[in-house]
């Protein structure tokens, strides 16, 4: 495990200045709300069962309150009077190498920032806000796992997180356009590139052109059926992903968000539509304006909301009898719990399939699939990721569904691994793929 050794050696090489820098960054990320959270935990431990890591492996280290406590201990020692006067009494700890290691393990290794513990905390501590501050501090100390950082670096250097060249992207779009034209038997069906003044700029996860072109084709089919005025961007503004949400370096996250803003300005579009990607939606919709410290001069929507609009307004028509295989729906944490998009995808699916069964629990109480928080990119924690995903696998099995719809390409990657590991024997699709299959073109 070279990555493991590398992180260990970086931990070993920490000097006093690193800890100081980490603390300064940590402090800079705390506002009134976070300071309140850090003063609130009563160690009741009831949050344990809310965490998919703890459900899969019931150890102390997986209790959300313990993860929080690792961070709070340092906060108390450095930013509270009692932590300085009586550290032993209140559980305050000096920020040293051992604690830095504990931070890395807690916030990178045992948390997908899903926020289920927040909803279930008896007090109401929004723990991911604290864990994000801790990740930022560790980043300032050079302790971001290098594969997670590499994903961010790809976006910064290549304009997308999979380092797809512009030539490859454009060729893929053209190829998908030909496929769409054949599918719908319409030579005018287009995947417009750089269409200035289009109403909508549509953004996608690079996994779509790279591995799942049918997802992009499905979205394009929906736009075609709705006669939408839309475009893709040929420059870096086509990639909706932003792993800056996970390495928590706001300057890098802001630079990636700026790609979207620049594309919107360059093309003069009215609405930025985020494709099916949980973290991409969370990053662009909610965190982007905060990273840039300014409001967007344009509207931003999820494609799920857009498809919901199309169906309600009668711009597209679907025949659910085209999708008769039992379907269940996965709720990506950044889209649903943290994103507030709970019902649109349900309305769309109910109209597009004959048998839709909810997982239990669902919506804001959903379980993370295990792939969130950048876990998919951190190879060193793969075993934990797959193990913690067992909770989601169990939920899927219980529904008896044969298709799992997941409006998130990161989740889809994780679900595909879970499908194999836990022998779920299901297909995994996006919402747009289900809608595209059900579209009635002669209506």
């Amino acid at each position, binding site marked *: 495990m070279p990555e493991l050794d590398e992180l260990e050696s970086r931990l070993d090489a920490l000097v006093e200045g690193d800890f100081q820098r980490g603390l300064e960054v940590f402090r800079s990320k705390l506002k*009134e709300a976070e300071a*309140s959270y850090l003063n609130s935990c009563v160690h009741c431990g009831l949050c344990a069962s809310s965490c998919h890591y703890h459900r899969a492996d019931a*150890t102390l280290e997986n209790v959300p309150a313990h993860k929080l406590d690792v961070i709070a201990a340092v906060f108390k020692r450095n930013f509270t009077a009692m932590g300085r006067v009586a550290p032993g009494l209140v559980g305050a700890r000096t920020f040293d190498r051992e604690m830095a290691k504990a931070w890395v393990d807690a916030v990178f290794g045992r948390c997908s920032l899903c926020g289920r513990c927040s909803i279930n905390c008896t007090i109401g501590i929004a723990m991911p806000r604290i864990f994000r501050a801790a990740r930022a501090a560790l980043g300032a100390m050079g302790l971001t796992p290098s594969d997670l950082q590499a994903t961010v670096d790809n976006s910064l250097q290549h304009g997308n997180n999979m380092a797809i060249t512009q030539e490859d992207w454009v060729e893929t779009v053209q190829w998908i356009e030909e496929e769409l034209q054949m599918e719908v038997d319409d030579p005018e069906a287009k995947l417009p590139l750089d269409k200035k003044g289009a109403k909508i700029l549509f953004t996608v996860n690079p996994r779509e052109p790279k591995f799942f072109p049918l997802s992009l084709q499905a979205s394009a089919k929906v736009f075609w059926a709705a006669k939408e005025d839309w475009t893709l961007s040929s420059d870096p503004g086509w990639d909706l992903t932003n792993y800056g949400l996970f390495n928590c370096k706001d300057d890098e996250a802001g630079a990636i968000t700026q790609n979207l803003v620049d594309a919107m300005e360059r093309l003069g579009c009215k609405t930025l539509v985020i494709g099916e990607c949980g973290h991409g939606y969370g990053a662009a919709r909610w965190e982007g304006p*905060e990273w840039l410290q300014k409001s967007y001069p344009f509207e931003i929507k999820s494609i799920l909301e857009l498809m919901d609009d199309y169906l309600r307004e009668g711009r597209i028509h679907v025949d659910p009898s085209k999708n008769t295989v039992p379907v269940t729906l996965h709720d990506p944490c950044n889209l649903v719990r943290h994103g507030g998009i709970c019902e649109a995808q349900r309305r769309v699916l109910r109209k597009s399939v004959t048998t839709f069964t909810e997982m239990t629990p669902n919506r804001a109480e959903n379980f993370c699939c295990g792939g969130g928080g950048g876990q998919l990119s951190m190879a060193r924690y793969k075993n934990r990721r797959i193990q913690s995903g067992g909770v989601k696998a169990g939920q899927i099995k219980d529904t008896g569904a044969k298709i799992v719809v997941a409006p998130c390409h990161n989740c889809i990657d994780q679900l595909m691994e879970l499908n194999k590991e836990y022998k779920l024997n299901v297909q995994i699709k996006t919402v747009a793929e289900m809608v595209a299959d059900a579209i009635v073109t002669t209506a």
Partner: protein
Amino acid sequence: MRLLVLASAIWTILAMAFLHHKTKGFGKRTLFSKPAGSPRKGALYAFTRGMAPWAKESVMLNLPSYVAGMAFHAGVFSAFGLMCLALLGFELPFFLLVIAQVFTLLGAIGGLSLFVKRIVKAELRGLSCPDDFVSNLLSTAFALLAFLWTLVPSMESLWLAEGALLLIYAPIGKIRHCLFFFTTRYHLGAFFGRRGTFPPEGNSHA
């Protein structure tokens, strides 16, 4: 003794006010994203339906602990109520006294059960620091002494002294959550309310 309690209460109020002020000093986050919902409605939900046992899976899975915790809190608040009345020289009507006795006794039992749970359960023990035990013991003893005082009035000095100690300790340890519970819950509700997650539309456990 009454002066000691009064001085302790003033200390608690001032110390809590200082803690609140210090927390406020971290500053408010200016938000630039367009809200999808209402922070106010989210906060309202967080303090009402969002606190119902059935709204939290963590509570439903740990009902005995939840019940013990609720009894514990009710007992400590009842004991404080009794202490205020005792300091002011009021006597409770018999039926109210019986209610206070039930609350304080159940509170002491609840507190003790949580204390034992914290010692016995390895995971909870691992999560605990000395403050967790001190805070519990001071509060449990306060509720228990309040109950005993209703039966044996000569215990008043001991009870008030313990109450003073509890008041002095409150801002020092985790009992400060009597303040931060409200600010934390507000921030949680406002956060999820702004994002349109609170109040939830559908049934998450359907």
